């Protein structure tokens, strides 16, 4: 138990002292996972909306694939992205393996199905009668989609929370494609694994407390927006 208390105390000390290494790790995590979530939103919202509104043969198959993708194991994504980005791999010419960009790519792949799936559910929850009414009032298809998306925007905040929460706490992909390089690709989670491996359990606990507080703060802000507008 004493190790937990030590960890909590150390977390506060690390934050208060503005420890350069901790700040660098924190910033890398925020930057990488934030960018990955943004990319996932850019891809996932249009894809989710299209899937919710369109009817085409094989749609159930695609929706099932998205639902499976929502549970995509990060380590699987990490392995495939690593192989693609190897110097000898098909995207080796980009030379981005073991850089933050590589982690952004892997995490975007992890988060995109989550955003797509939640958008899909949110848009489908907007009653069909509402859409018919819009069209009846003379809305064009683009206008109709836009209004429906606005109507579904509150449940879609959950997509941001789930996507960001999923990637900032993921470890398998970050470790493989990032390489846990100090000052460059060391994130909160890979630093935690390293500190545990070194036997520095108090630092590892301090970092995990930081991660939890960070995710909580972001979810709190988003939830406040979501609940206020309700």
């Amino acid at each position, binding site marked *: 138990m004493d190790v937990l208390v030590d960890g909590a105390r150390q977390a506060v000390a690390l934050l208060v002292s503005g420890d350069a290494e901790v700040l660098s790790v924190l910033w890398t995590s925020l930057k990488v996972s934030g960018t990955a979530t943004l990319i996932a939103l850019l891809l996932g919202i249009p894809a989710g909306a299209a899937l919710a509104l369109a009817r085409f043969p094989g749609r159930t198959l695609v929706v099932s694939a998205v639902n499976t993708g929502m549970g995509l194991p990060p380590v699987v994504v990490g392995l495939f992205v690593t192989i693609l980005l190897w110097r000898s791999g098909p995207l080796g010419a980009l030379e981005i393996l073991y*850089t*933050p960009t590589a982690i952004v790519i892997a995490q975007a792949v992890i988060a995109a199905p989550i955003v797509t799936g939640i958008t899909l559910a949110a848009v489908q929850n907007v009653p069909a009668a509402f859409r018919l009414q819009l069209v009846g009032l003379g809305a064009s298809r683009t206008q109709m989609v836009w209004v429906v998306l606005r109507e579904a925007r509150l449940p879609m905040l959950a997509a941001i929370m789930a996507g960001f929460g999923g990637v900032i706490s993921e470890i398998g992909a970050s470790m493989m494609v990032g390489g*846990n390089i100090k000052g460059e690709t060391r994130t909160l989670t890979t630093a935690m694994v390293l500190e545990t*491996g070194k*036997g520095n359990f108090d630092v590892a606990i301090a970092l995990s407390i930081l991660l939890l507080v960070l995710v909580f703060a972001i979810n709190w802000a988003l939830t406040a927006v979501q609940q206020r507008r309700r």
Partner: protein
Amino acid sequence: MRRSLSIVVALVLSVAVTASAQGPGSKTVILSTTTSTQDSGLLDVLLPLFEKQSGYTVKGISVGTGQALALAARGEADVTLAHAPAVEKKYVAEGKMHNRRLVMYNDFLVIGPEADPAKIRGDRSVVAALKKIAQTGARFVSRGDKSGTHVLEQNLWKAADLTPAAPWYIESGQGMGATLGIANDRQAYTLSDRATMLAFSRRLALKPMVEGDKLLLNIYSVMEVNPANGPKVNTAGGKAFADWMLSPETQAVIKTFGVDKYGQPLFVPIAGKKDEDF
């Protein structure tokens, strides 16, 4: 909404551009190495020094020795620092790695529970101790991950003419730290490098049982990657790092590393020595 979208796009682009700007060119060296060099904290001391002195950017990728050499053999790294001489020599013989040079050593030891069920405490011969562990069926936790430590352990079992097996032989499949935790929990024997054991000593009830046997020497070597292994091997950078590891200044840093934290050095520098010297 349109404005926020353009902000998003600008952000994504700026991250992509800054990231690609720092991507590896000929000034970037990829070092594939073992977890023990990172877990001991040695890499965090050496790599910034090398970067400052050489002007290269070095990416240290810490994986098991097996994977470190496999990556190098595919040309995914430029230089390798490993600690499994038998495996290393195989790669050198196959031409995948060049110019293998000894850098430093530390030692392994067999640790185990205070009760010492196999009665090996103080044995001089590690092979004899392993035989006793197998005979009494006392629990032993193996890394089981093709790391340098695991390879050495397998060679010791071979030398003892034994094939360890469950139920008393437990494979953790994890790094040294996690394996020590499991051995501690199960009151089992295990083989650990001294650096990791010292780092964990505060939380371990296990005691040193067998140490000082010549077979327990843990020798680290640096090897350069054959440029034929892959399309983008940075031969000059890899050689620069290997040479730097063997320079008198770096060897001096290695010699005192760990003294401040553990009261004893973790590695002994041995630049210029040969395998036959041990």
